[in-house]
């Protein structure tokens, strides 16, 4: 798996904001750093297919070597992870994950298998006993873990991280960070992370792209 940005340029009202070319191999995390307002989150919107006015883009986004920039967002198989876990509050913990599992896969596995798959996933992060809880009752660290499990359950081909750890306090931050990177590596997923924190970038162990105004 890989994620490639080929001369991807972002424009605001037709003025160039930034341009990025990079290749992210399977299991690697590339970091994008720079001051606020430089268009880092907009870059992620462009890659995932969510760009809206006044922004526009040129260049290519390739997932596994296939150009996806003309596809709608939901067909690109690019998972998103934000600083807020954004779990759906009308669903329980396990239903949040079930929501992410593709329909085909749910059909193939059958109800019980899906159930046990979810339980297994939650078990790996020590959350098996809270799977029927409302998501709002979870701690910040727990929510962050469920959010990643949800993203991964959709079988993405690449993952975008938008300041994913900035809301966590320092100890939790380090733990969560290590765990997230380990998960991404284990599944050989290419990832692009936007961050303010040089420690995030350092521990990601991948290329660091600096953008400036």
């Amino acid at each position: 798996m890989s994620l490639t940005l080929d001369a991807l340029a972002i424009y605001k009202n037709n003025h160039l904001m930034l341009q990025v070319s990079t290749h992210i191999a399977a299991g690697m995390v590339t970091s994008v750093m720079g001051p606020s307002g430089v268009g880092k989150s907009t870059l992620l919107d462009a890659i995932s297919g969510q760009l809206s006015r006044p922004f526009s883009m040129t260049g290519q986004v390739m997932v596994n070597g296939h150009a996806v920039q003309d596809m709608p967002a939901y067909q690109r198989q690019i998972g998103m992870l934000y600083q807020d876990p954004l779990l759906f509050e009308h669903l329980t913990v396990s239903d949040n994950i079930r929501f992410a599992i593709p329909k085909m896969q749910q059909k193939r596995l059958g109800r019980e298998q899906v159930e046990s798959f979810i339980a297994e996933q939650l078990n790996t992060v020590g959350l098996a006993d809270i799977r029927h809880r409302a998501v709002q009752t979870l701690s910040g660290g727990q929510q962050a873990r469920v959010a990643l499990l949800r993203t991964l359950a959709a079988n993405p081909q690449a993952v975008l991280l938008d300041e994913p750890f900035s809301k966590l306090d320092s100890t939790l931050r380090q733990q969560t960070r290590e765990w997230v990177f380990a998960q991404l590596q284990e599944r050989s997923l290419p990832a692009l992370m936007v961050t303010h924190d040089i420690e995030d970038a350092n521990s990601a162990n991948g290329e660091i792209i600096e953008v400036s105004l």
Partner: protein
Amino acid sequence: MSGFHRFSIVMRMVFMCILIIPVFAGLIGVLMPAFGFFPALGENQISLQPFSQLLANDNVLSMSWLSLSTGLIATLLALMGALLLVAVFYQRAWLNRIQHLLSPLLVVPHAAAAIAFLFILSPSGWLARLFSGSDMNNPLPPDWAFPYDPYGLSIILALTLKELPFVFLMLLSTLSQPQLEIKVKGYLKVAQSLGYSQITAFMTIVVPMIYSHIRMPLLAVLAFATANVEVPLILGPNDPPTLAVAVLRWFNHVDLSMRFQASAAAVLQLLVTLTALACWWLAEQVIRKLSRHALLSGKRTWGDDVLTLLAVAVVFVYSVIALLLLASVYTWSVATYWPFPQLLPDGFTLMHWQTALRSLAVPLANSIILAFSVTVFAVVLVLLALEGELQMTKHMSAAMGRLDRSIMHITLYLPLLVPGVAFLFGLVWFQQMYFSHLTWVHLFVSHLIYVLPYVFISLAVAYRRMDPRYVKVAYGLGKTPITVFFAVKLPMLFGPIAVAFALGLAISFSQYLPTLLSAGGNIATVTTEAVAAASGSSRRLSAVYVVVQIIMPLCGFILAWWLPNVFFKPSLKANPKNQGIKVYESNP
């Protein structure tokens, strides 16, 4: 763009058309007979005959003046009262209590409130029984002017009572918009650190800031107050009545040729309402010019004690009136023989309830079927229209986006600003001419015109405020736009949808004129029956009708607060702070 998104954009167009077309068709349908053109009655010539006929009527001026003055005064009083309450009680514990006191009054239909007023103001009402000085030896009711006083004071009273909660809740909901709330609280702190009292700071800094947000709804209130039919019909003078009531009478006159005069009067009503709006606009300009000096004079307190006292008095009077209205209606509904000037009837009985509920069965069923079908349609259409707006504005330039917003804004307020008496008659004329057998459809459309704007305004804020990242996450999980709409957006908005639904029901329940006209009197609802009963037969029966009218919308709102906690909130306690009636949010 996906098929679903295209569909939602089309639905947004449909939404706008439903608001625009009937109003314009109705206006044309009134203008033509107003200028003497009405082929159905054999008149094919354009002439000013209807207007000269109307102007020959001695009372035209006084009727117009009555409409204009009652509307302007009631709106002004409602605005001042609401501003006073918010200024004095903002950021105080009392604000919540007052909100709870006023919210239920908002959903009481105008007709019901007017009938309840009729009960206490009339010579056999509680006020007369308490203060007339009559006793057993002199059992004659007082000879006072109320409730049909020639100056329309009763109308002003009832309209103010009904509009004040509306303006008040509108102010609160404007103040609760996140970005605005932060700003307002910050400004208040700064002003107070400069030595301004809280109330003065609110009046001088916050009011000018939030006025633009409540302006459109306020103008809608004004337009409504100048052209409303049921309140002056029930409480107003008979000779001459307000213009809107006169229009209704002339339209329903056995002599069909009176329709020309009625149409001309409807056009005049339009002018009266426009005059009221112009007066308001003028007053805004004058106040803006004159207040500049006062706002910057450096005065730190502006009679805070007096204002506080006044605000407490408003709350007190309000509570007393509300209680009195409720108690009076309820007592009449169960009263047996009740001679004057006894304070209580001789005995109590449920007989009137039994009689009334039997005769109300069909109107009640009609009301509920109509309200449900209209509201379901409205909520679905509004949700799709909001989705369409999101998809459409995504790819618009900033200038186009602004233009689109203003067009939507005007469209939404069109049916609320153009008086019902001015366009509904014209609409009825079209309906009778081309689709005379589709009574239910006409009724449906005429209610929809009034339900749609409120449902839209009430849902729009929640829809636009929803964190777009939830949607991005869902797309990242590979979900199609239609799945995202149904499985993510709608459940997340369940609370606001439930409130909008209850609001839609309440608006539909309360419609008097649209029901009366579109159905040509063939389909009765609880509201039309209540108004009919108020002017006639039995006070006790109409008391029962009023109680039913009050209970119906309240049931809707109670369900709206309760249901979201049952569905879609797994094992989570309700958050009571989010449950006030957020009916109205300005700047849609």
